[in-house]
């Protein structure tokens, strides 16, 4: 085992594998930076190039890039409120407010370091859990998926900040939006209004681009000035602080990385779910949940750590069982076939050094990606001080191209525009955007899995062991703040009555 691991590590640094990993990571970060394209596009674009390569070189290129796509996506999310990839949407919630405060360096430091730590953790877990993962994966069926998603949805209530009513209503709107399109269980097209473009549903990337990028540019065009409200004293100083912040919040970072790995392990949930569930967990476990959305470090590091650690988990099921853990991994299966390798249990005996090599590639590419991001942070931070007259058209074009790139459809641009206007007013009238995206991402998965669970087990699915434990977790998540609020109210009353008596 140790020998195979060392063989895998040595193969990372063999030429041309190392060069291909670096090339892949640079392309992956660039693709991630451009909104609307994402990791799947990167893999699809790169797979034709691996014909004739040896497996080590091929996976250096593919995994080197795929591992850091979200790291690149975090940069555009932070700087322009335009997430490069779907999972980076959660990065905007607290990352962008931090940039607006002029703390771009610190935000970059947190995002890059948390991504690297998450990615390395995911790779480490990949190595550790392969021998024991089978029962875990097999234990998860539609009822467990449904309840796990409900854990995320339960967190929506905490994303409303000082106005939970608005948070819940916006979350409900997100859930409702997730129901647009053909219902998988009945075939009925819901809220399609006769438009063929809505049959496939509303793509969350379009909503994210509209809600964050377009609305922010409308706002910037109105108020003038630049993205960062204030000039940062020294960007590089913030960078170090940001890196240290990640280690200051190491426990949250670790928990979110675990969330990412678990989401990755479970086929069918994606990077979006990882980012949002981790963000929801950060809010729910915080002592000051009302401050989220205003530039909380925890709100930035949670999704960054989770969606990078997810890749290690997703690769486990792909390699060990031939079951892709995510859509990206499904594309990666194509590369396995091109290279003449059959993923599955035999990988653990016949190609063990290659499996370790994959894990090492993910870990090293993540560190490299973060280093590139940190090295460019000072230069990139200057973009946030560009005046609006230049930045607004640049970002608008960037966002519109990203929106179009999702499905090459002009109708999608109308969706982007609609959510741009809605997002502007949501911001103006203090409606939190995070619950809408969370509802949209998790809603469809929840309904599909609920229908399957009901068909398979009826209402009794609630009493399956893992499902029941997750139900208790939901009750805890929802109940804890109520208990806290009641205690606080009683405490206040006690103080008041004591004061009156005195």
């Amino acid at each position, binding site marked *: 085992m140790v020998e195979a691991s060392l063989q895998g590590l040595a193969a990372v640094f063999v030429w041309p594998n190392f060069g291909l990993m670096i090339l892949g990571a640079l392309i992956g970060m660039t693709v991630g930076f451009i909104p609307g394209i994402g990791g799947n*596009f990167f893999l699809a*674009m790169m797979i034709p190039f691996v014909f004739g390569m040896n497996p080590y070189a091929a996976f250096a290129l593919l995994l080197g890039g795929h591992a850091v796509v979200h790291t690149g996506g975090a940069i555009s999310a932070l700087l322009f409120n335009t997430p490069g990839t779907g999972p980076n949407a959660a990065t905007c919630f607290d990352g962008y407010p931090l940039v*607006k*405060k002029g*703390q771009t360096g*610190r935000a970059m430091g947190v995002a890059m370091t948390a991504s690297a730590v998450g990615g390395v953790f995911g790779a480490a877990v990949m190595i550790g859990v392969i021998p024991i993962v089978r029962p875990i994966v097999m234990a998860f069926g539609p009822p467990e998926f449904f309840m796990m998603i409900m854990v995320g949805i339960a967190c929506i209530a905490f994303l409303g900040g*000082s106005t939970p*009513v608005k948070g*819940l*209503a916006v979350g*409900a*709107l997100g*859930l*409702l939006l997730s*129901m647009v399109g053909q*219902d998988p269980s*009945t075939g*009925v097209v*819901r*809220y399609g209004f006769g438009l063929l473009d809505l049959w496939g549903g509303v793509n969350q990337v379009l909503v994210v681009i509209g809600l964050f990028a377009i609305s922010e540019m*409308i706002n910037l*065009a*109105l108020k*003038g*000035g630049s993205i960062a409200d204030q*000039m*940062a*004293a*020294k960007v590089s*100083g*913030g960078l170090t*602080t940001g890196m240290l912040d990640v280690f200051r919040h190491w426990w949250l970072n670790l928990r979110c990385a675990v969330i990412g790995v678990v989401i990755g392990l479970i086929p069918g949930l994606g990077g979006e779910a990882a980012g949002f569930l981790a963000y929801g967990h950060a809010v729910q476990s915080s002592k000051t949940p009302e*401050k989220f959305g*205003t*530039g909380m*470090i925890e709100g930035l590091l949670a999704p960054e750590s989770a969606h990078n650690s997810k890749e290690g988990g997703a690769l486990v099921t792909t390699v060990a069982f031939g079951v892709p853990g995510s859509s990206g991994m499904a594309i990666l299966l194509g590369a396995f076939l091109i290279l003449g390798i059959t993923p599955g249990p035999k990988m653990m005996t016949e190609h063990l050094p290659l499996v370790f090599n994959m894990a090492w590639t993910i870990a090293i590419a993540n560190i490299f990606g973060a280093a590139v991001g940190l090295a460019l942070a000072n230069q990139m931070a200057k973009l946030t*001080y560009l*005046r*609006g*007259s*230049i930045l*607004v*058209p*640049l970002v*608008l*074009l960037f966002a*519109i*191209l990203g929106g*179009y790139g999702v499905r*090459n459809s*002009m109708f999608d*641009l*109308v969706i982007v*525009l609609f959510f741009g*206007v809605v997002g502007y007013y*949501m911001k*103006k*009238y*203090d409606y939190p955007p995070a619950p809408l995206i969370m509802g949209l991402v998790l*809603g469809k998965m929840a309904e599909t899995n609920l229908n399957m669970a009901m068909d398979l087990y009826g209402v009794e699915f609630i009493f399956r062991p893992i499902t029941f434990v997750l139900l208790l977790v939901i009750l805890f998540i929802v109940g804890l703040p109520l208990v806290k609020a009641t205690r606080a109210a009683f405490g206040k009353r006690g103080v008041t009555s004591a004061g009156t008596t005195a």
Partner: protein
Amino acid sequence: MRARLLNGPTLFAAFFVVLFAGAIIVAFTYNVRARGAPLVISIPGLVLMLGWLATEIRTGGAATLRRKHDREVAISGEGQDSVSAPAKGKETSNIRKLPVPRALPELDPFLWVTGLLVLIWILGFQIAMPLFMFLYVKVRSREGWMLSIVLTVAAWAVAYFVFGHVLRIPLYEGIIAQQFLR
């Protein structure tokens, strides 16, 4: 009374009420199984927003504006452990404020964004993108000729080379090209 009803926060809350009510009405046109989930979501949504709408009407939109103010205070840095927070007085004095019309201020950026989509629809990405860039930078923002031209060329280069040739994403050509140039 008119001021209590016709203010932004109240109208936006009413927009949500209309959305949820519409979703409920439309859901009843589906079969029982398909309508279940939308109703489970939109009925509580409607109840919540009706409650909030009542609050907005009662306070004339002040409920939202007060909370928004509190939130802006939070974003401006108070209560944060901002180690690298900027020094006061270092605000960007060199930043040029854009000329913004006073009446219906949102209309101006809304029209620009909508105009971009209309331009793309008519002329396609490869013409609309540089044209929009030039119009925005030169006409709206009154920047210098050199900057306007450089950014215009850059916008065209991104559309043509990066998306068209490197990434090979087929960009929409516009109705004129589709109707007359084929």
